[in-house]
């Protein structure tokens, strides 16, 4: 029964976010602050992960493609499609669930426990609109951007590894990148990143906003938020792939 109650409270929280801002300027300021926290704050880890994922994909693909009948440029094609379809949106979003999600949950949890949310309510501010809406909006703007950056860096990482390890020359890798390119793959990755961005921001916000107790509960809420977000990301990944990819 708890799961139904949680779903109900989650939906009411989402509904409660939509109200006229008390002061648009303050909401905009908070939105920009969240964009900085979620976007710029996660850029470093996203860049590192993307480059290494691309590099490892290249090496492992080359390791598995042993047939002389397969042209070497195929390695670049496989790396490109794997990075665009799966690694950039899904893996990066799982990492972001840990980085940005836990931050959102602990920030709101701390505000709840230390009565800062109550203080805002007393002032007559819609806390769901002021605290949660800018986070979700910022995630919806910044996470797809991070995913695009991850795609580029992943493919670049693959090229660096291919050249550095002597797997294939750079020119062959570049040629492979342009072969059989399907633009819909990028659109599909962006659709996924929007869905994941909503999950990454709204689920931790829910667990943080409704936390009860003290510091220990904030930690628990943060962990639970990350776990639930990751599971939902994987579930949504499967559903979107089944629905949108022609098989």
């Amino acid at each position, binding site marked *: 029964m708890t799961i139904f109650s949680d779903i109900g409270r989650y939906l009411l929280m989402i509904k409660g976010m939509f109200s006229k801002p008390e002061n648009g300027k303050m909401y905009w300021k908070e939105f920009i602050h969240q964009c900085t926290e979620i976007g710029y704050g996660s850029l470093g880890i996203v860049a590192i992960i993307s480059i290494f994922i691309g590099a490892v994909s290249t090496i492992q693909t080359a390791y598995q493609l042993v047939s002389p009948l397969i042209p070497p440029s195929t390695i670049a094609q496989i790396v490109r499609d794997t990075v665009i379809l799966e690694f950039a949106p899904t893996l990066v979003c799982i990492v972001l669930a840990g980085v940005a999600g836990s931050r959102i949950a602990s920030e709101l949890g701390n505000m709840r426990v230390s009565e*800062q949310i109550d203080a805002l309510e*007393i002032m007559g501010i819609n806390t769901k609109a002021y605290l949660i809406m800018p986070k979700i909006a910022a995630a919806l703007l910044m996470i797809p951007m991070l995913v695009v950056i991850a795609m580029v860096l992943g493919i670049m990482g693959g090229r660096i590894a291919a050249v550095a390890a002597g797997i294939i020359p750079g020119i062959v890798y570049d040629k492979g990148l342009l072969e059989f390119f399907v633009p819909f793959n990028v659109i599909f990755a962006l659709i996924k990143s929007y869905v994941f961005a909503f999950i990454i921001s709204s689920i931790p916000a829910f667990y943080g906003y409704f936390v009860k107790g003290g510091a220990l509960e904030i930690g628990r809420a943060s962990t639970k938020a990350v776990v639930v977000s990751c599971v939902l990301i994987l579930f949504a990944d499967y559903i979107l792939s089944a629905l949108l990819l022609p098989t």
Partner: protein
Amino acid sequence: MIEVKNIKKSFGDKVVIEDVSCVMKAGQCNLIIGSSGSGKTVLQKCMVGLFEPDQGEILYGGQNFTAMKGTEKTEIRKEIGMLFQGSALFDSLNVQENVMFPLNMFTKDSFKKKLERVNEVLARVSLADDVNKKYPSELSGGMKKRVALARAIVLNPKYLFCDEPNSGLDPQTSLVIDRLIQEITKEFNMTTVVNTHDMNSVMEIGNYILYMYKGNKEWEGNNREIIFSKNQRLNDFIFASEFLQDAKDMRMLEETGKIPNHRNMEEMLRKDAPSMGTSSDTPPTN
């Protein structure tokens, strides 16, 4: 003036407040006292709208707050300032930004004007300009309370709520905070509701005192009447400290004529506060 009419509140099967009614007057420090778990915080949270009471009404200047919808409630809330037990200052904002926050949200004044107002209220709570750029983590407990009080009064609210303003403070700082609350209440003719179990506060600022016991209104009166109350539960509560127990013993000796009553306080009390004759001094039956 705030009128509380027949408020009931329960969480699941646990009834926390059973049918409490009282009137909190303007220009006075109205205290809700009681031991931990007596329901005073829940009553205060019902009054400010953080909890929805199961039954009863809260009236702000005759307007039924409990029956109001979202936007109407917001209008009343703009007239409410609250000092929280843990101060509830925003960690990511410095003192100036914390105090300016309600002004930024609800006024369209220029930055200069808002800054003037911030400095004015900070000066009112005896905080110098050099704290403006400090963050809450850099402040002492007493300073945090003062900043929170400054933030609570920056929009000139009609109603001021204080939840255990002295918790975690030394007696001297507590006294300063108490006096500050009392002065501000009189200066701005606010209806102040203070939730406390600190007997020093009770004696210092209690213009009206509501004593709660297990979710019920057990006694009401003022800080002069409380010391002479015959209510056993209230006596157990107020004379819990050794110092006050001595005072109680002295009172008994005076009453039995074993020592002369030089202070003649009871007579003084009758003269000074004839209007506060609403106290229910009936001792509990069980």
